[in-house]
């Protein structure tokens, strides 16, 4: 794990916003701009997708990202790659140390498998994304564009014998991750509403986003 703090000051950001648990954020990060997500109260998961703003069928690819860096965890220095194996963004600061991109996002449908068929109506990240693309047709995103995401601040260790475990978060109040865009990208975040697992301590809380030129 590599802990790298940022020199950027929130008071100098061109935009800041709090995103409550169960809400989404969608916006554009232009090439060269830097975007920060702050885990305000700790142990929160920010389920995040990126798209090439000019051609959204090019999008963040968890597989291309981890394969090219040869490691399954994301942290400072990680290049976030697309399904065409191009670099979309680079993580430039990280005070948490490790982020998951294997665990995917919760969905009402996967909730039925993971927890109980009768939990199908509990709010989930993929429903937030569906609302985001429905309310923002200007981005040209459709259900087919919704793929495998990053879970910022989430801790999903892979074991050498091939296990996948969900551990208590290693994040804490005020930890943040920051990335600089290499090309113009759409960022789509679901601030995870999940109430059934320890990824957010069974208590979803707000995150803050900030954007600098």
């Amino acid at each position, binding site marked *: 794990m590599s802990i790298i703090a940022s020199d950027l000051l929130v008071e100098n950001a061109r935009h800041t916003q709090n995103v409550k648990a169960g809400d989404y954020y969608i916006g554009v990060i232009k090439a060269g701009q830097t975007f920060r997500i702050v885990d305000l109260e700790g142990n929160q998961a920010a389920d995040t997708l990126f798209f090439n703003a000019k051609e959204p069928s*090019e999008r963040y690819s968890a597989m291309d990202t981890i*394969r090219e860096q040869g490691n399954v965890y994301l942290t400072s220095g990680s290049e976030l790659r697309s*399904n065409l194996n191009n670099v979309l963004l680079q993580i430039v600061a990280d005070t948490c140390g490790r982020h998951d991109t294997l665990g995917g996002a919760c969905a009402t449908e996967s909730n039925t*498998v993971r927890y109980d068929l009768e939990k199908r109506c509990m709010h989930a990240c*993929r429903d937030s994304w569906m609302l985001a693309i429905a309310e923002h047709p200007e981005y040209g995103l459709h259900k087919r564009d919704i793929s495998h995401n990053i879970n910022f601040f989430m801790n999903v260790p892979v074991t050498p014998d*091939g296990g*996948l475990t969900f551990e208590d978060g290693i994040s804490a109040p005020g930890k943040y991750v920051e990335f600089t865009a290499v090309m113009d990208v759409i960022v789509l975040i679901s601030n995870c509403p999940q109430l059934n697992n320890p990824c957010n301590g069974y208590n979803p809380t707000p995150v803050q986003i900030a954007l600098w030129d």
Partner: protein
Amino acid sequence: MPNSTEASHRNHPSIRSLDYSTEIPGASHWSLRMRKGTVMRLTDTTGSANVGMLFYNPENLLERYNAPDSLKCQHSFKLTQGHCLYSDMGRIFASIIGDTHGWHDTVCGNSHASHVNRWGIRDYQGDRNEWLQNGHDAFLIELAKYGLGQADLAANINWFSQVQTDEAGTMLLAPSKEAETQVTLRFEMDTLVILHTCPHPMNQAENYPRHSVKIELGEAETMSDDDACLTACDENRRGFHNNALYHLGR
């Protein structure tokens, strides 16, 4: 369908018959619709094959194989016998009813032209069907036949490729295994299968790894109450329950 002339399937109680057998050469691609209750058995005849595979619901092509959902609900980083392969809608496309290989990758994605270029440029004019195809383009070709494209790609399975991690999360492609390992899928709903036999993207072989795979198709026995995939975990029981709801009234 005619009875299989091969007896080997009798070793597996879940296979009723194997009715068709073919060999897909390396650097190739294929797609087919598998019906609920059919089986597909893949054999790595050389011990070095890689088979990229994706699943879609032919009734709703927006429903597709979801590797993260499959891994997290079974608490696994690898795929092997007893595992189910889930869609993003909480349903099971297929279950792995047999596996003598033991570890299949589903997180490394596809080889791109940029990976294959280390062995040379794809050139049909010069190489004919011995060309240097890559997995990404192979998938795009098959997907286009169903009106699908780049936006419909998802994390694929790489059968017969074992990618492990160490404590720090560093990934390593394990060496080839012995020849003739097999993996058998039983389809739990109608499924569009897209596949290629292009190299795994982490393959560093000196020469382009051109390895064929044997594919056998047949019918499954009716699933029993003590089926190993059904009873592997409560999550799979609930996944099969979702399939039963999907097939209600059929």
